[in-house]
Every structure is written in structure tokens, then in C-alpha cells.
């Protein structure tokens, strides 16, 4: 590992910048929900008309995905790296 630029400060070395990214994300979320009442929908399914359907679906889907992968799938399938050797 060379040290050509190891002392240089990079953008995410500063915790304030990481915090700004998070604030940006939260701001975008609020904005996207606030925008919804002003958009005229033309849904195929009834549930698409519920407020925040996509937001809730995306959030819940990802949480369930991670929990299922971590607590159900991984205990079944995890093996040492040299399992097949």
C-alpha cells in the first residue's frame, strides 16, 4: 500500500459531510411525501391510491428482506470459506 495520498483529507473523512448526506436524504423523503397530494395518479391497482404506498412498500420490503436474509437464510447456508475444498 503506497501512501501517496494517505494524509489528504477526503470528503467523507469529515463527519459533518456524512451528516449532511443524511440530512439531504431525510429532506428528500419529506419532500417526496409532501409532493404526493399534488400529483394526479392514474392507478392500475386500488392500493396505489393509498397515501405513501410506494414509500411504505419500499421501506417494509427492504427491512423484511434484510431481516429474513440475516436471521432465516444465513443460519441455514453460511459455511466456512474452505467448505468445498
Amino acid at each position, binding site marked *: *500500500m*503506497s*501512501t*501517496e*495520498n*494517505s494524509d*489528504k483529507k*477526503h470528503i*467523507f473523512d469529515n463527519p459533518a459531510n456524512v451528516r449532511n448526506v*443524511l440530512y439531504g*436524504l*431525510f429532506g*428528500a*423523503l419529506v419532500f*417526496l*411525501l409532501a*409532493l*404526493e397530494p399534488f*400529483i*394526479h*395518479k*392514474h*392507478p*392500475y*391497482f386500488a392500493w*396505489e391510491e393509498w397515501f*405513501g*404506498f*410506494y*414509500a*411504505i*412498500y*419500499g*421501506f417494509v*420490503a*427492504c*427491512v423484511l*428482506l*434484510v*431481516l*429474513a*436474509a*440475516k436471521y432465516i*437464510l*444465513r443460519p*441455514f*447456508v*453460511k*459455511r*466456512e*470459506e474452505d*467448505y*468445498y475444498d
Partner: protein
Amino acid sequence: MIDFIPPAFIYILGALLVPLLRGRVKFAYMLSLPIVSFFFLISVQVGTAWEVNFLGFDLMPFKVDRLSLVFGYIFHLISLVGIIYTLSIKSDLEYVAGLVYAGSALGVVFAGDLFTFFVFWEMLTVSALWLIWAKRTKASQAAGFRYLMVHVFGGLVLLAGIIMYISEQKSISLGFIGLHSPATYLIFIGMGINAAWPLLHTWLTDAYPESTVGGAVFLSAFTTKTAVYALARTFPGTEPLIWIGAVMTAFPIFFAVIENDMRRVLSYSLINQVGFMMVGIGIGTELSINGAAAHAFAHILYKSLLFMSMGAVIFRTGKINATDLGGLYKSMPWTALFCSIGAASISAFPLTSGFVSKSMVLDAAAHGHMSIIWLTLLFASAGVFHHSGIKIPFFAFFGHDAGHRVKEAPPSMLIAMGIAAFFCIFLGVYPKFLYSILPYPVDFVPYTAPHVLAQLQLLMFSALAFTLLLLSGIYPSEIRAINLDVDLVYRKGGRLFYRVMDKGLNAFNRTVEQVFVGKFLVAFAKFVRELPAKLLAKICWPFWQSAFDAADKKTITENLLKRAQSGFYPISIMGFFAIIYFGLLYLL
């Protein structure tokens, strides 16, 4: 006068010259192959077909329609990108294998008959193999052999189906087949193996991560997408494909979340993306077939872009596991940027290629009122963002700094990634270009306010879930471990079979030897040897009883046994037997 040369010929014959050339000439020559071939292709009319009579069959080695053209265009583009990418990896084996591989894929999409189709289909497997073996590690050798076994099996299933189908139909032309007889089921499954259907998918997640840096870029583009083309050509509107596709979109994302090897994460998400295409083909409407073709086009670009960025990471750091990576944006900022563009595209962010193609498939499912399918695809869309959209760039380029201070990827790799990244955004911003080359006329409008809002909500709240899970420490930490998949069946199964055969058959063999050779034969030999003497002794006993005393009886019995063993009997006894024998004959 030949005014047209089919792409497969240019690629495959052209590849053979590559090892003879050196330096810049070689580079220029390799780059010229896809470009020349592309100009030939755009000069040709839709509907052109070459017919050749061969052994009484009407072969059609080259046939162009709008479906094959979509795949033809993207295969040209991505092979050009792949060649540029591999210029910094000086390996003739990979160049030749890559070109033959791309040429075979082009051969398949422009094949007009089942025979030509099958020949190129098999060449695809054989040439892909060298892109895996070229890594020259033990793991890649073993993975290559497994790859070969699975595809040889798939090829035989397909061949059996094709032969039965030809004898049913009395024609070898390639067109709509549809599921209706055992032959068509065999063809269906043979193609399904190359499309990495669930349970038949492990050749992909097994072999692609073991291939070379450049090999993975080629591999990710051709084999599965050729199968997508083949299914779109022969089985559009086949309902089982909808369900197969839906399962394909959903199950790999669970594996991708806990996988440590980044290229294996990409392999799982490749299966997930091909699932969307399967659903599109299965629905079979003009919109959905367009969607499948458009998604294949977009997918090839962003998936190879992601494989290129991970390849550059391997090329520079020698590492690919998430546990060994992190913080690379500091030393490889351009690679990080291109990877992020690929990640945004695969997640289908508005203004990227994934958004304008994937939404066609989802819309087609909604048009057909397939609520379960639609909800599964939506789940998969959120999931793919989670593992390919966030996990890949985050764990490689951001996150915990693993301390790698390396050089940025070489220029040729950056140029290749730049071209792919450009197209990812270009297609997203200007979808008309993509829509104009699709098989059917398109009246689909991707950018409507509710659609953009819905997609952004879905993705951003998935990002929120990732962020919260990561900050709370619930997100599964990357672990140095591998995860079992269905390939367990043949990887351990092979050994299990061996052991069962060893323990079972060899034990059986040993037991038989002990019982039969060791005990039975000895006993039998003894029995046979002593039987006549024993019999004689029994017969003579009543006479001896009266004639001899005890000591004489013993000597006479021993003498009898000795004689019986050596075969010498007193003549009178033999005479006695003879008389009994003839007497019996007379009586019976």
C-alpha cells in the same frame, strides 16, 4: 459479389488472427472488428434471410428481424466496450475467447434455423469456458469444469428436444414453438438452463465470480441474454415463464444481501434482472416483449458497467470481498463514479436506463391485472436497489476505509466504463432512441409525474431502510464465509455419490468376497471332496458293523476318505455304482 458478411463470421474468423498481431496494430484490429461488423449490420434490410440447402435441409444461417436486431445492436456495442476494457489486460487467450464468444452469441440471434442455432449455442458454452479458465487458479479451473458439465447437460437436453421437434414438424426453421409436446418441454428446459432459472441458476453464481477481470464483463452480457432472446423468439406468451421470472426476481436478492464476494452479489442480481425479462416474455403482449427486449438492452450495459468497476477494483487491489474493501473512492474516484451510475441504472432511478425499460415490464404486468406478480416485481425492484444499488458502491468505495491506496483504473478501463455509463444515462434521458429499435411500435411514456414520484418514493425509502439498519447495527455485517446454494447438490453431491458408491459397493464387494469366496467356496469344496467318501461310509456301515472290530473300522474309514479325495476307489465300488445307475435307468 458478397455485399454482406454476417457478424458471427467477422467475429469468429476475425478472432483467429488476433494472436498473430502485435502492439497497436492488434488493438486497432480488435476494435475494428465490432465496428466493421456493425456497419455491415445496419446496411442490411429487416427481413433479409439467407437460405442454404444442406443434406436436404433448408438451412438459414442468417436471418434478420426486429427482435434479433435489438440483441444484435447491443451485442456489438458491449463487445466493443468489452474489448476496450480488456486492452489493459494483455491476454490473447481472453481476446480470442471473448471475440469467439461474442460472435457465437451473434450467431445465435441471427440464426434462422434450429441447426445453426444449436451450433452457435454450443460454441457459446465452449468459448465462455476459456474466459473462466483464463484466470488460471484452482478455483476457476474447478468452477469451469462445473460450468461445462451443467451446460453440456443443458445442451444435450436442448439437442434432444430439437431432434424430436424436427421429426415432429418436418422442418428445421426457427420460430414460435410454444409448450405442447415433450419435445418442446425439452427445448424449453434446455434454454432455461442458460437463462439461469431458479434451481438451474448456480452455474452462474458459481462460475462468473471465478472468471477473469475482463471475462466477467463478457460473460455477464451474452449467455443469459442469448437465452432471453431464444425464449422471446420461441416461447413468447408462455405462462409458466411469468412465474419462473417472478421467482427469479425475488429469491436471489436474499442471497445477495448476505454475500461477501462482490462479483457474486452482482451475479445474483443478474439473475434477478433476467427474471424481469422472463416475466416480460411470459406475458407475451407487445408491450411486455418490448419491455423484455428493452430491459435486456439496458441491463447488458449497466450490468457490464458494474462488473467492469468491480473488475477494476480486483485489478488494482487484488481483493473482491466486501470484508477487504471500503473507502476506495479516495484512490479510484472515476471508477466510483461510474460504478454509482451503473448502480443507479440497475436500481431504475429516473433519468437512467433501468427506469425506462423495467417500468415497461411492470406496466405490462399491471395491464394484465397480475397483482401478485406485480407486487413481487415491486419487491424485487426495491431489493435490487438495496444490494446492487447501495451495497456494491457502498462497501467497495465508501463505508469503512480498508486502507487501500492504489492507482486509479487504467485509461482503457475508464474509457470502457465511461462509454457504458454514458449509454446508461443517455437511454434514460432519451428513451426514444431505445424505443425506436424495439420489436414492436412503442406508445409507452415512462416519464409521467405519478410514475416518477412512485419510483423515487420506493427507492428513497429503501435507502432509508438501509441507512437505519446500518446505523442501528442490524444490517448483516459482512462475514468471511460462503453461502450454500443449490450447487451443493452437485458439488457435495458428487462427493456424496462417490462415498456412497465407495462405502456401499465396496462394502458389498468385501462382504460378498468374505462370504462367498472365503466361506462358501471353501465349504463347498470340502463338501464336494468328502461327499462320496461319506456316502460310501454310510452305505458300507451295515456291512462293516458285523465284519470288522473297532480299530479296523477306523483304519478302513480313513483309507476310504483318502481314496475318495484322490479319486481312487476300489473297482468293485465303481461297479456297484454302475449297476445302480443302469438299474435306475431300466426302472425309470
